[in-house]
């Protein structure tokens, strides 16, 4: 008698789209019996079947009944679901079926890149991935933490790994939020080899956690021969974290930004978020000071009412005045509002232009020290002015070749 074992992965149901459900029942004989139900069978049935058979060969699966219920899943999703089903069937399997790395995704990032907006995408929802970059956020965060059900963490790891390889992010910084440490350390092998730019670390409370993470990342970089820098963005979400903010910010040279999660922070305080946000004022200002003290970017939490664009605009202007340089998004429509709020004012642009021109002139004359009127201008001031100019150009407030006019 045949001994059968069954495992499944993915999602099924009327409301599912851009995803699939795969069920594998392993047999001792009979070959591969594939049943494919797909609303796009007319167009893509053959490709899906080919992909499944190829994966069977890859994982050396010879005798099985395979059910694929497809709701318009892209190949990177189908392969993630299939790989998960296989690995749930036999947890001893360690080899990875990696999608071809999309050449459009080989770009790198820099420590001081603009991080005005970062768009959170739930880790186990591949339907949001292909178009996210079209909304032009500064960064896209594939989330393994709060948006993923505890039972689906393994599913999200594979989806995110495949997405990092296959999905075009259209130039957005490629970020992943891992799980709370130490569990989050297990997520690293799914992202470090696949050109992740920034790792967001939730609920950080001490510098030691960052150091432990850095060590693991360094090990993996060596193992996979990764040369480029991978940056960290610790998320402070507790009273203890706020009190340790400076040490956390200073814990690694790879920290590029420090951010705050206010839902958990206010819960930790035993209070609630209000519109006035008085309860988080001290925490926010502490984050800003800690980040600025070590020369990295302070980034604010998300704005959770996706229908209140005016509230978002006000909130962004408010936190900009506190010193923050970016804000989280949970909906693509928030991106533009945030970018507009972070755009420099005319006054700021004019001042920046004067500084940059004075600096250029001093350079031409070979003068080491730049003065504007009676004020000395040092390097950080020039750098800040240059960023203001860059932002102004990005927001169409200034011509690219403004110096010529």
């Amino acid at each position: 008698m045949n001994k059968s074992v069954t495992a499944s992965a993915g999602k099924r149901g009327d409301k599912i789209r851009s995803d699939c459900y795969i069920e594998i029942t392993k047999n001792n004989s009979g070959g591969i019996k594939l049943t494919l139900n797909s609303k796009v069978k007319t167009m893509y049935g053959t490709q899906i079947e080919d992909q499944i058979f190829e994966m069977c060969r890859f994982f050396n699966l010879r005798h099985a009944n395979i059910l694929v219920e497809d709701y318009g899943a892209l190949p990177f999703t189908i392969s993630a679901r299939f790989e998960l089903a296989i690995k749930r069937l036999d947890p001893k399997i360690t080899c990875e079926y990696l999608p071809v790395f999309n050449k459009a995704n080989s770009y790198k990032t820099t420590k001081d890149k603009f991080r005005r907006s970062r768009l959170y995408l739930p880790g186990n929802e591949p339907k949001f991935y292909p178009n996210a970059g079209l909304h032009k956020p500064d960064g896209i965060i594939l989330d393994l933490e709060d948006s993923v059900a505890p039972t689906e963490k393994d599913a999200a790891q594979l989806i995110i790994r495949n997405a990092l390889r296959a999905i075009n992010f259209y130039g957005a910084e490629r970020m992943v939020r891992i799980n709370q440490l130490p569990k989050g350390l297990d997520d690293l092998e799914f992202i470090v080899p696949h050109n992740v730019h920034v790792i967001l670390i939730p609920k950080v409370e001490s510098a030691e956690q960052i150091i432990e993470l850095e060590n693991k990342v360094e090990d993996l970089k060596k193992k996979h021969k990764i040369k480029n820098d991978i940056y960290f963005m610790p998320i402070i979400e507790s009273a203890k974290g706020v009190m340790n903010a400076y040490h956390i910010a200073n814990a690694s040279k790879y920290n590029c930004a420090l951010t705050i999660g206010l839902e958990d922070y206010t819960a930790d305080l035993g209070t609630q978020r209000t519109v006035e946000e008085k309860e988080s004022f001290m925490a926010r200002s502490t984050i800003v000071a800690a980040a600025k003290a070590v020369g990295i970017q302070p980034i604010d939490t998300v704005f959770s009412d996706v229908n209140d664009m005016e509230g978002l605009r006000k909130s962004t202007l408010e936190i900009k005045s506190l010193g923050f340089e970016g804000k989280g998004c949970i909906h693509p429509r928030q991106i533009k509002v945030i970018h507009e709020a972070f755009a420099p004012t005319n006054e700021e642009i004019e001042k920046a232009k004067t500084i940059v021109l004075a600096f250029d002139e001093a350079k031409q004359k070979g003068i080491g020290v730049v003065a504007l009127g009676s004020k000395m201008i040092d390097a950080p001031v020039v750098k800040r002015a240059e960023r203001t100019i860059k932002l102004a150009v990005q927001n169409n407030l200034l011509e690219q070749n403004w110096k010529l006019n």
Partner: protein
Amino acid sequence: MKLVKNAAGRFVPTSVNGEKQVPFKGVNKHKPIGNKVSPKISSCIDFPSDGNKVVKNLREALKKAGLKNGMTISTHHHLRNGDVVTNMLFDTIKSMGIKNIRWFPSASFPCHEHLIKYLDDGTIHHIEGSMNGPLGRYTTKGKMKGTGVLRSHGGRYQSIQDGEVKVDIAVIAAPTADPFGNATGDRGPSACGLLGFALADSQYADKVIVVTDNLIPFPCIPWQIQGNNVDHVVQVKSLGDPSKIVSGTTEVTKSPDRLLIAEYIAQFVEDAGILKDGFSFQAGAGGTTLAFALFLKEKMKAKGIKARFVRGGSTKYLVEMLEEGLTDYILDGQTFDLEGVRSMRENANHVNTSPFTSYNFHGKGNFASMLDTVVLGATEVDINFNANVVSHSDGYFASRNWRLAKLFIFKMYYSCNPII
């Protein structure tokens, strides 16, 4: 079936349902000469001098109209998915034992799934007009006894006036009518806005039956369908489900991807230099095109310009533009929500039109070619601007081609008239 290669390189039949067809000859190559058809001469002798054309019921009206096997019966789609009249009509035809009807609707909806049993049993021989939703699947699967023929909205008008399709009996569901047959869609418990798609049927059909659930004393003012063209009036309890006839409100899409598309379109219109004082545009009632209209409105306000006219399908968003002075007129083709219906009733600058004005290629010009910009959906578009608005990518007739049919007209009439 004899097939010939048309100018688009496709093999097409020269005869469909026993009627001769003209294969596509190339853009602007088909220009028939001759006269339009005209309806039979009627005489007042045959109509009551008190103007009361009300008959007992639909069965009686069909009997008086001389219903026979093989006739062409037309209906309009202004009651959309709330329509019960068409279903009632074919229940009646079936009960009279009549067979082989050519049903000639201006569009069909999921509510017309009811008619599949009449396609199965031969009461309806084939559909000529549009086949969407369940009827689209039925047609695509090849189950229809005859061959389904797709007509665009303007092409439908043209086919009637040119005599390609002779309508024997037009059954016009009218939300308000008087006993003489004057009728309007802009009021009454089943108000749907305008009845423009029934205009050609009322002008050219041999017999015209108006069915209403809101019979008012003569005269029905203003009338959209003229009673002098009407043979019989039938009063029924209800034309259908008002909530499915017009939306309470049409809604802008919430999908960020669709909003982005809409924003790009508005940006394109601005960058293309079309957005000038006195310009004109048409946008449908789909979530994306509605969003386009809103983005366009912001740009118009920012630039301080207004449109001379907007071509409807009207919605509350176009009505707001009219009432805020951002356009002089709405030239309406069909009314999609209650605000549109109210505006049509109350605002003289919200004007009824019919496919004759805009999409009929055999006329002395058309509004469609005069529009500065039109935004319409398509299920597939290629990089040479060919668009598919007829079927889904899997080959099934699209569920919403009644709405998409307008784009089809543009393609069809500017490149290949008629399509076969």
